[in-house]
């Protein structure tokens, strides 16, 4: 099975978008997970709700909100363009859509992992004079690695499958914003596009299985290291 240039473009773009969405989102996700797991403050429930919003509202709504907040002629949109970040009809906009959609999944997984870390270990480190940053970097973070992996894999998978927010926010431009699900959708809509759609279906399944297998191997290795 050799790939047509259109299929190759869609696959390459999907992988690029998903990797970027996870890469950009990981550090903020850790920060928010830590905030929600370890801190008590006013408005915590509100932050929690806002982060989870994309998980609950229809993706098309998320895409529409992105247009309203970060569209080409909005204040924030123009600010980002001045900084050289163009979102409208651009693959970076697809990354943003995937990032927003997958962010709650990352935060959730990492937060659960942090909450499971034994607070006694952190307290012991503090009595020995370790700084907060050092405790986080040498105890909390390493022990949360399984959650980090789960979160990253979930976010990667969600980004690969992202459809509604992407097509609403950045349209369906081959080679620029036409990711795998968008290409698949286009083929299902075209008369006689069934064969092409079936091919992309198979490709999607293969990518998903490979990603899951990789994450499984990674998770087992880290579990071994943590449990000695």
């Amino acid at each position, binding site marked *: 099975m050799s790939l047509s240039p259109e299929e190759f473009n869609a696959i390459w773009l999907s992988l690029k978008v998903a990797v970027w969405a996870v890469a950009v989102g990981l550090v903020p996700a850790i920060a928010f997970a830590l905030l929600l797991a370890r801190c008590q403050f006013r408005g915590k429930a509100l932050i929690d709700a806002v982060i989870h919003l994309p998980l609950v509202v229809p993706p098309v709504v998320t895409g529409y909100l992105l*247009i309203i907040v970060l569209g080409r*002629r909005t204040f924030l949109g123009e600010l980002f363009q001045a900084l050289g970040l163009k979102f409208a009809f651009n693959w970076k906009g697809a990354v943003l859509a995937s990032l927003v959609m997958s962010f709650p999944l990352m935060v959730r997984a990492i937060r659960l992992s942090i909450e499971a870390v034994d607070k006694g270990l952190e307290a012991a480190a503090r009595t020995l004079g370790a700084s907060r940053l050092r405790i986080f970097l040498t105890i909390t973070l390493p022990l949360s690695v399984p959650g980090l992996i789960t979160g990253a894999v979930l976010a990667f998978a969600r980004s690969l499958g992202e459809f509604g927010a992407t097509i609403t926010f950045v349209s*369906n431009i081959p080679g620029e914003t036409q990711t795998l699900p968008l290409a698949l*959708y*286009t083929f299902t*809509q*075209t008369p006689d596009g069934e064969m092409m759609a079936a091919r992309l279906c198979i490709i999607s399944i293969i990518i998903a299985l490979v990603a899951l297998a990789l994450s499984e191997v990674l998770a087992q290795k880290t579990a071994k290291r943590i449990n000695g």
Partner: protein
Amino acid sequence: MFKRSLLTLASLCLALLLATSAVASEKVYVFAAASTTNAVKELIDIYRQESGSAAEFLTSFASSSTLARQIDAGADANIFISANVKWYKWLDEKGLVEAGSNALMASNALVVIAGPNGKDKMNDIRQLPGLLGEGYLAMGDATHVPAGMYGKEALSHYGLWESLSKQLAQYPDVRKALNAVDTEQADFGIVYKTDAIQSKESHIVYIFAAESHTPVEYPICAVKGKQTAETKAFLAFMKSARAKTVLEKYGFVTQ
């Protein structure tokens, strides 16, 4: 004793079932192209008022391609209104159109629109690439959405398709393309005249000449085996002078 009460209960249930099925009104499913949304909604309201029909009308508005495929897959549609002849024929070739039920509901014009802060008028479509600059032109997906297919024909007619291909934002239905211009994501858009008239934000800057693209025609038909007295009456109403005035109010052209 127990047996008797059980029997009473069973007969009660049966009576209830029969009663509800007698009272339940007929349901008419209308699958219509997205570009006809407002007009068809109003037409259904008027039809129900004037005929006093007790039938419940349920509508599904999407791109003609989506609807045709859903009907082919066995969706419960009674009436199909397509935004182009191609998808109607596709359904007809599959034997899914009730013979003799089809008619031409209306036709439409294809226009170029600009957003709230966009240009007022364009005398020649060949000015479009210059006016567009680095911006984007929103339209229906040219591979399958009728509005996009007509748009591609019209742009090709003037030799603009190739040069603009990198600046096209193609959407899964024409209303999303309109929305992209309304929200100023795209500078210009190609939509139907009827959509442009309804938009409060965007305005028409150019109307494509009729010879630049296949006529935009809206066939209406009953789905094979789904023709009832109610759908027949509705289809007859859609051909009436009253229906035509409503369609014209929304910018459609009727014969």
